[in-house]
């Protein structure tokens, strides 16, 4: 029987304390020498004199979880990694808050240097997640990834 896939989604913003707990939980894994963490934070972008105040995220959760799992499996094959954790917000995340938390650990730093940007880029490109940028004046636009 294969391991059930853990969901990457959390409701609302990701609390810095969650990140601290996640780091602390790795202190018993004594083969690890290097951690690297990526955090996406909602930026107060200006568009035509109006300003983003929050992003509302929706997703096809089951498919996103499955694809995230496949991307992780691929990177475990490719690099010598100890663990990988991915968390993405659903719902409303205000400017300045964290909406995306990706955590990669390995015995040596070269592996995390290579794997983390690759993981972040793949997740942004391949997960069915949709960001709606909400503006101060009540309008919105759909986020476009570069």
């Amino acid at each position: 029987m294969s391991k059930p896939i853990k969901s990457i989604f959390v409701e609302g913003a990701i609390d810095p304390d969650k990140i601290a707990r996640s780091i602390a939980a790795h202190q018993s894994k004594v083969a690890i020498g290097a951690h690297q963490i990526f955090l996406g934070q909602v930026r107060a972008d200006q568009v035509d004199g109006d300003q983003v105040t929050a992003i509302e995220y929706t997703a096809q959760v089951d498919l996103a979880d499955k694809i995230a799992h496949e991307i992780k499996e691929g990177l475990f094959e490719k690099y010598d990694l100890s663990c990988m954790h991915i968390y993405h917000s659903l719902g409303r995340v205000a400017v300045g808050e964290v909406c995306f938390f990706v955590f990669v650990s390995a015995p040596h730093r070269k592996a995390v240097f290579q794997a983390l940007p690759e993981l972040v880029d793949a997740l942004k490109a391949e997960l069915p997640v949709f960001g709606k940028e909400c503006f101060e004046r009540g309008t919105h636009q759909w986020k476009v990834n570069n």
Partner: protein
Amino acid sequence: MDMSQINYELECFGLLTELIGQTTLLESSGTLTVGALKARLLQDYPQLIGIPIKVAQDNELMGDVEVLKPGKLSIFPPFSGG
């Protein structure tokens, strides 16, 4: 001539919820490939022009030449997570 009518229940995401609706029913006189479904959508909703669409069924993204079984589908505009 095959008179059996096929129903596709489409769940829309992101921008498509505004251009199409949260869900929509699409009827066809036979099974459709993903490519044919996209053509039908563009005909029914001309405002979709220029928006690259992806289609998933049974928790799998489908290529344009694959045939869709009757039933539920997810349709996606470009992804913008992170």
